Structures are given as C-alpha cells and as structure tokens.
C-alpha cells in the first residue's frame, strides 16, 4: 500500500492550475475533462514520481463550508516541503503571494503560511535536516 495521491479543494480550477504551476512551481500531470470540471493534478518537478496533488473543485457546499471554516481559523490545509524557506518566501512574495505568517522556527522546523488565493492557507516548511545540510 502506498500514498500517491492527495487533494486540495480550489474555488476555480483554471486559477488554481495557474497558481500551482506558475507561482508555486509544480508541473501539471493530469488534465482530463469530466463534465464541467476536470481531473486535474500536479506534481513536484523535484519528485515527478512523488505524491500527486489533485486540484479538486470546491463545488460541494459541505466541502466549501469546511474549507472556509479552516481558512477563517487560520489553519493551513496543506504543507509543502522546501529546501530553503527564506529563498522560497522571497520568491513567492515576488509573485504577489501574501503570507499570514512569515518564516518562523517551530522547534526543529521552520514554517511560513500563505494564501493560495483559491480558498486555502498553505504552509511551506523547511525540515531540520535541510537547515543543517
């Protein structure tokens, strides 16, 4: 049994694809039309065989209620690992990404939290091993 797929709800799949590829820097893996939506996934260019992230429409009112409640509470709904958090933070800010938490040490990891502009807060984190490396 392997973990190869996870998903994040987005308010607009076109907007999400643009941000997750052009801003976050992932690459599109699948884009298959299904009715008015798409089976749409991205992967990391650093790990194309890693977990696929599905950009899932938040059309289900129950899902959207959950997404909005988490957002309001300031809780990130996904976390992406980076090698150098300060470099990523600077790069993302250059793309206009807004942070609700700037990079900060949390025990062994450094984390920052930003809006993906698709209805979610996402966390980027630099693990301790990367920091000492």
């Amino acid at each position, binding site marked *: 049994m392997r973990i190869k797929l996870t998903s994040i709800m987005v308010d607009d799949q076109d907007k999400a694809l643009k941000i997750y590829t052009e801003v976050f820097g992932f690459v599109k893996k699948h884009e298959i039309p299904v009715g*008015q939506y798409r089976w749409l996934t991205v992967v990391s260019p650093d790990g194309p065989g890693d977990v696929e992230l599905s950009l899932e429409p938040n059309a289900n009112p129950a899902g959207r209620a959950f997404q909005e409640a988490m957002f309001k509470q300031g809780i990130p709904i996904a976390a992406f690992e980076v090698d150098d958090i300060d470099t990523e933070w600077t790069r993302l800010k250059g793309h206009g990404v807004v942070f609700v938490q700037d990079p900060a040490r949390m025990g062994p990891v450094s984390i920052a939290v930003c*809006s993906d502009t698709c209805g979610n807060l996402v966390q980027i984190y630099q693990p301790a091993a990367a920091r000492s490396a």
Partner: protein
Amino acid sequence: MFTSGAFERLCRARDLLRELPDEPLSIRAVAKEVGMSPFHFIRRFQALFGETPHQARIQSRLDRAKQLLALSDRSVTDVCLDVGFTSLGSFSDLFARRVGSCPSAYRRHVRSLMPASGVLPEALTPGCLTLMGAAFATFEKPRDAASSDAGTQEDA
C-alpha cells in the same frame, strides 16, 4: 505579512459581501466597516482571495442562485431578487455568461440529473475520487468493450 487583525478583518469583509440585507453595503462601505481605505481594501482582498470584492459578491450571488434553482421551487424572478439582483434581464445575462445556460435551462438540466428531489447530483458536487474515476473511465472504455467482446465469444 498580513497581521492576524488584517486577516480577520478581510475574512469578515468577505462575509459582509455575501450577506443579503435589504440595502447591501457598497464596496466602499465594506472597506470602511473593516477599517481600510477602499484602495487598500480592494488590493489586499484580491491578494488574499484571488478575486476582487465585487467579483466575490457576484460569485456568491450566482452560487446561491444555482442552489435555489436546483433545490427550491422559487420562480426565476424570485431567485433573482432573493440573491440580491434587482433586474431580471441583467441577472439572466450574467448567469448565462458565467454558467453557460440561462437560469431556467440550468434548472431543467440540474433537475434531470437529480437522483432524488432535494439531492444535488454528483455531477455538480464532484469529489476528487469521483472525478478520477470518471476521468480514467474514459480511457478504459475501449478495453472494457474489447474484454466484454472476448467474454461474449467465450460464452459462445
């Protein structure tokens, strides 16, 4: 960085934009309500939510209209007024441009897909895994057809 105060105020602004009082607040009034200048309010709202306050308000009204058309028996005119539009013509035009069909055609289409009265059809509330299943089913069709042909031959 957004302070937690600014973040909370922008979340509150989004709620205000979605409310449907008899006299909806102007964007300028919403900005004032959350203590920001209109210019900063619009800029920061868009940076956080990926849409302008006006776009957020319109989208919220259209989403609510879709729900009412699918799940209630309100007339199209009533739905138009219920969600905060004042002109049926501009509501229908906007709805058709964004959704792809006019409100009454949308209602007929959704009702035809509904598994039971009052239950949203899966096609309108897709989950990650139902989309994946449907997407890969499009690739599987030729093989399924071939294997069922083979099965038929074996049976014969």
